[in-house]
């Protein structure tokens, strides 16, 4: 069997995803229990830096939208195909997805530049951060390339890739639709599994503990005390 051209595909598209999800679950849980206080993005000091706005904001709006899009396609592929059944609507969806991909890329570049140039930030940057940045660059570039050169991803993702993902989830892997995909698409899929496997070892875990209640809790007033009581002003 090792001579078969499908052997490598079986490793990459059947064994790797199960392995990646296994690592993701076990290590995340272990880290949450044993090293609870490392379960954060660690301070990236975004409160301090104007420059970080152009990294932080585009990156997070971009990546959250793109990931949500992938999840929606996974959950309701038929509805996506229905939406795409008019070329104009297909184009709107594809362009919107491409824009958010570009936003993610711009944000990431800005974040990388900041980490590499601001000495204070460099101090708190680990090797895992740099590996993660590398993985993100590959992942986003392969996604953008696929959007431009292997269109229309929103449709064929729903028609060909989603059934494959479901076949993994239902423990009945069928990689028939994936084996013939262009290598850039395969890179995007494999890259995703690698990021999932690496996820629990990095500051990415902050995505698992987003303080969602902040969205609906009562507003809290934060007062700024300080130099207002300066002797320059008369006290009453």
């Amino acid at each position, binding site marked *: *069997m090792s001579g*078969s*051209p*499908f052997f490598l595909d*079986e490793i990459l598209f*059947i*064994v790797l995803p*199960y*392995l990646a999800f*296994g690592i993701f679950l076990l290590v995340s849980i272990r880290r949450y229990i044993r090293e609870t206080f490392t379960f954060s993005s660690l301070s990236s000091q*975004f*409160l*301090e*830096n*104007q420059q*970080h*706005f*152009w990294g932080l*904001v*585009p990156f997070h709006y971009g990546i959250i939208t793109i990931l949500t899009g992938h999840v929606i396609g996974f959950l309701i592929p*038929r509805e996506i*195909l*229905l939406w*795409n*059944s*008019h*070329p104009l609507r*297909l*184009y709107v969806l*594809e*362009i919107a997805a*491409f*824009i958010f991909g570009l*936003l993610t890329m*711009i944000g990431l570049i800005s974040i990388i530049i900041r980490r590499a140039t601001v000495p204070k930030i460099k101090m708190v940057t680990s090797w895992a951060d740099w590996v993660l940045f590398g993985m993100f660059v590959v992942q986003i570039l392969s996604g953008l390339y696929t959007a*431009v*050169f*292997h*269109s*229309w*991803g929103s*449709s*064929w993702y*729903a*028609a*060909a890739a989603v*059934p494959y993902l479901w076949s993994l989830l239902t423990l009945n*892997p*069928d990689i*028939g*639709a994936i*084996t*013939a*995909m*262009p290598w850039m*698409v395969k890179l995007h899929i494999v890259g995703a599994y690698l990021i999932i496997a690496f996820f629990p070892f990095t500051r990415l875990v902050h995505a698992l503990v987003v303080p969602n209640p902040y969205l609906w809790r009562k507003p809290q007033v934060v007062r*700024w005390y300080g*130099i207002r009581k*300066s002797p*320059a002003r008369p006290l009453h």
Partner: protein
Amino acid sequence: MRPSLLLLLLILFCLTPLAAQETADYFRQNCMSCHTIGGGRLTGPDLKNVTQRKDRDWLIRFMLDPKGMIDAGDPYALELQRDARGSIMPTVVGMNRARAEALLNLIEAESKLEKSQFAGMQISDRPFTPADVEMGKQLFTGARPLMSGGAACISCHNVHGLGALGGGMLAPDLTTVFERYGGRKTLATWLTAPATPTMQNIFKTKPLQADEVLALTAYFQHTLQRSPEDPATARLNFVLIGLGGTLLLLGIFDVAWSRRFRAVRRPLIERKRMEILHEQ
């Protein structure tokens, strides 16, 4: 034993059983779109008595890796490719030595029959009408959904003249597929049970209906009058619109955050400093 190894063994185990009926079904799903047994050539050659034309060992090697044989410059494989107007037989999903042996046995047995069950299917030969072409176009773009729920062709394929951003570019441009596949009978047979790995995976459970095959074949005959598009223009438009949209969105962020915190401590200190300076 590691779970990955277990999984691999499980996969191997699933691929092995080869009952006779299963081999016939396999032939129907994977081979019939391009081959008949005694019905003349389609995209690929008629397989009647193929084991008498070439030795089994060569045939099995070819079935396992058709493209590899062609790339290696095997003269007979190259001749086959020429006969098929340049089409290369796809590497068939699930093909292995045992399966190839079973298929050759099946072909040998079927070749001895007066009329094989694989002699080819009945394809309507009524003349195409403009309505067929229109229906084909609607099926291609998805405006008219495929009966069994398969994805529209535009998801992955382009033909000349589809509109602003064109069709998909994952898979080949189909403008001249009618000619490439050697005309109506061959193309229609192929569409009935598409056998390339990706197409087969999507359409084996959602086959095209006979009238859809006819309409698409009519549409592809119609598009033959044009020549395939250079995809560069559509790509450039797509990228430019995307870049424009991105700049617009960044502008919106800038405006939206003009009254929000972009940073916390530094502006507060800054404001304070200004106040103190002002008071002094």
